[in-house]
């Protein structure tokens, strides 16, 4: 098979997948379709109850879909009356609840899925142990290898679960909230270890998370889910920069949504004129990220303008110099160390602004808000 063709064809193809909750009759997964390429990391992002875990269970072969198909490398796994058993799919699974075998030690758990040759005794092989040790080291749990799972903390159990699923190097690995029990320090390290391992061995992965930061940092492509459907999918940065609607915009980190009157490539809003990524006319909703806004000190004569800003009307919008409605008041200042978050009120609209660590405006200051990036018109 020529190389190009094999990279073109997706590793995993999901088409029109649906599964209905038997109790409530509400679809947990509602006509979902997506592709994952070989070696690609794909994230399913959404609030709990959006159907993310159910999708993973459908892919792994634990659930039978009502409609739709799952195929890998062109071979049908689920759907049209076919159901390949989980062990024949070569799809790994990291469980949210870890599911470590309580009767096996850490090392035996990690080596459980590795086979050299065939036959049940194959996993006692030296090569297998070496592979297990390598992963225990990467997950920083090597000293625990002889322990039983019941004697591990939650974070340790989660790392054993990760090591166990990585060890057989399946072409596709499903990860259900795989870093949720790790504390902040360790989370970054383990995340990049796992990502490095996946990329090194050309393994594709689907990660389920409700943490947008994790999805953006870990995945190549992100799908935002709501009520069993994929709302929008795309490369992480693209999704972040051009969300399709307010839901996606909000879910991928804080976002200001402003009402505005669009005329072509720009729109008039509470903070003044904002450039748009796409042309539009009439009433629009515009998304602007907190870090895409900048605060400037209002110029000298603004204090006069402020005085009548309260009683102001639309009459003087677009007048010479600084339009009065672009003036704003600082409501709150939250110092986070690496940055500062401001809540700023502009003509009755509250906006979130992220500034550098050295920003010095105080509560009550009169300021001006500038859009540093083009606003995104959302549904």
């Amino acid at each position: 098979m020529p190389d190009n063709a094999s990279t073109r064809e997706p590793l995993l193809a999901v088409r029109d997948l649906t599964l209905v909750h038997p109790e409530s009759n509400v679809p947990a997964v509602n006509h979902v379709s997506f592709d994952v390429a070989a070696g690609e990391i794909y994230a399913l992002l959404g609030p709990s109850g959006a159907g993310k875990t159910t999708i993973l269970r459908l892919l792994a072969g634990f659930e039978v879909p009502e409609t739709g198909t799952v195929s890998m490398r062109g071979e049908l796994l689920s759907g049209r009356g076919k159901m390949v058993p989980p062990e024949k799919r070569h799809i790994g699974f990291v469980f949210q609840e870890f599911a470590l075998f309580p009767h096996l030690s850490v090392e035996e758990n990690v080596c459980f899925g590795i086979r050299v040759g065939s036959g049940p005794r194959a996993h006692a092989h030296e090569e297998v142990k070496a592979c297990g040790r390598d992963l225990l080291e990467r997950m920083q749990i090597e000293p625990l290898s002889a322990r039983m799972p019941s004697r591990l903390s939650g974070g340790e159990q989660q790392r054993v679960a990760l090591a166990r699923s990585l060890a057989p190097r399946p072409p596709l690995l499903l990860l259900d909230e795989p870093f949720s029990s790790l504390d902040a320090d360790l989370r970054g390290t383990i995340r990049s270890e796992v990502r490095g391992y996946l990329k090194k061995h050309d393994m594709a992965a689907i990660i389920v998370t409700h943490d947008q930061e994790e999805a953006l940092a870990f995945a190549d492509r992100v799908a935002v889910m709501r009520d069993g459907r994929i709302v929008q999918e795309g490369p992480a940065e693209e999704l972040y920069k051009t969300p399709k609607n307010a839901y996606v915009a909000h879910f991928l980190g804080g976002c200001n949504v402003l009402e505005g009157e669009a005329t072509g490539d720009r729109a008039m809003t509470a903070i003044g004129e904002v450039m748009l990524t796409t042309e539009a006319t009439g009433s629009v909703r515009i998304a602007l990220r907190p870090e895409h806004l900048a605060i400037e000190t209002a110029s000298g004569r603004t204090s006069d303008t402020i005085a009548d800003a309260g009683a102001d009307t639309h009459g003087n919008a677009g007048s010479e110099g600084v339009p009065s409605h672009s003036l704003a008041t600082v409501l709150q200042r939250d110092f986070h160390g690496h940055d500062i978050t401001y809540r700023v009120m502009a003509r009755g609209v509250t906006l979130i602004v992220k500034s550098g660590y050295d920003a010095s405006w105080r509560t009550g200051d009169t300021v001006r808000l500038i859009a540093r990036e083009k606003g995104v018109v959302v549904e």
Partner: protein
Amino acid sequence: MRRRPPWYLTFFPALVSIAVGLPIAYLAVRASEVDAAMLREILLRERNLLLVRNTLGLMLGVIAGSSLLAVPLAWLATSTNIRGRGIVTLLSVLPLAIPGYVLGYSLLALGSPYGPVQELFGVTPFARATGFWGSLVALTLYNFPFLFLTLRTGFLEIDPALGESARALGLSPFAAFRRVTLPQLWPAFASGALLVGLYVLGDFGVVSLMRFETFSYAIYLQYAASLDRAYAAWLALGLLALTITILAIEFRVAGRILLERAGKGSRRERKLFRLGRWAWPAYTFVGTALLFSLALPIGSILFWTSRVRDFSFSDLLPSLFDSLSVSIPVALVATALALPVALLAGRFPSGLSRGFERGAYLGYAIPPLALALGFIFLTLKSVPFLYQSLALLVAALSVHFLALALSPIRSAVRTASRSLEEASRALGRGRWETFRSVSLPLLWPGVAGAGLLVFLSAMKELPVSFLLAPLDFQSLPLRVYGYTTEAMFAEAAPYALAILMLSSLGATLVLRVSPGGAR
């Protein structure tokens, strides 16, 4: 995501519920086969009132007596700095190894002519059956360990932080105990008292040896002596109604039926009460309790064993063989049937699966004589060739003891969760491989423990065997019972000793199965 259980996980539990329900139904059928005049005569007998009064009086008496022993012992063994708490615990559970009728035998044998008391002191304190008081003592000594075990768990499960926070909220030590600790102990006490009460209602061996007229004894008399089966059926229904009333009260009061004990001991180090100068009274109490519950009965059995002439071990073998020929099949059948009931309840929780589980527990809770009588009516009506067959005895005992197997298997099923099987499948192991390397190793200890528990319980079972046994069937318990009713204490002794040794194994097993048992 909820799935439908496979057919066999519904079929077998349904079968179990039917096997419990049918004998009860036939009891009602047989009871209804009397004409109106006869019925009026049966229901209005003055003796019925006496039976109710005697049965309830004995039950309450045994619960009170057991509390007097079990509450202090459980508190001493869990919450004080008494020395040898492990030994106190072990010795408080060990009386379970002496079945009620063996206790009855040993008490009667103790005071009988030529018995140890006469030998030592030259007096014969009680020559023969002693009615209420004899029954009360024998049943209390046998039953208090049940209450001890549940109370012990109750004491161990109390989070010491709760008492401390009550103190921090301004309560005195006594007020904290009364308002915080005691209410937490109540469910443990209620479930223990339920076990004791149900046992007393169903007991047949002790009351018949002591000749105290309770429902069970009356059923036995009607069935065995006067052969009035309609009246026996009515008495059994009365006993059943009493049992169900008590179950219902318990269900209301404690909000849950015991038998399924869950929970873990608190991880935090418990602060122990320092006995100080109360240490010696505490030791005296423990010593006295154990003298009566262990030393006297065992001493009595050993005394009479020493009086046995011309008896060799091989004389035991026919009885041992009869016992084994029932107990082994019962252990296998009850465990095999408990597995689907536990799997259905654990993996596919629903109203139906809980119903099936309750059905299985009912088979254990209903008085054994009533169950056995139901089985007799059932076979005589529909499958007469099975009457007095070994197969019928095995079937009835399996239904009766299935609930015993349920608890250990339920906790094993909880360990061997479905997600573990899924994890194994996702790691490339097939259905059979997964069963072999994951599910079986996790289920096995529970299943084996359940089998052993049922086996040992069946080895010492008396009432069901008494009614259903084939004509020439002479298991160890039937031997002890038969000889004792004839006051042949020396002849009974070797069989009693054999049962004692077998069921000591059972008591240690119960201790290991119960939570916190390893400590």
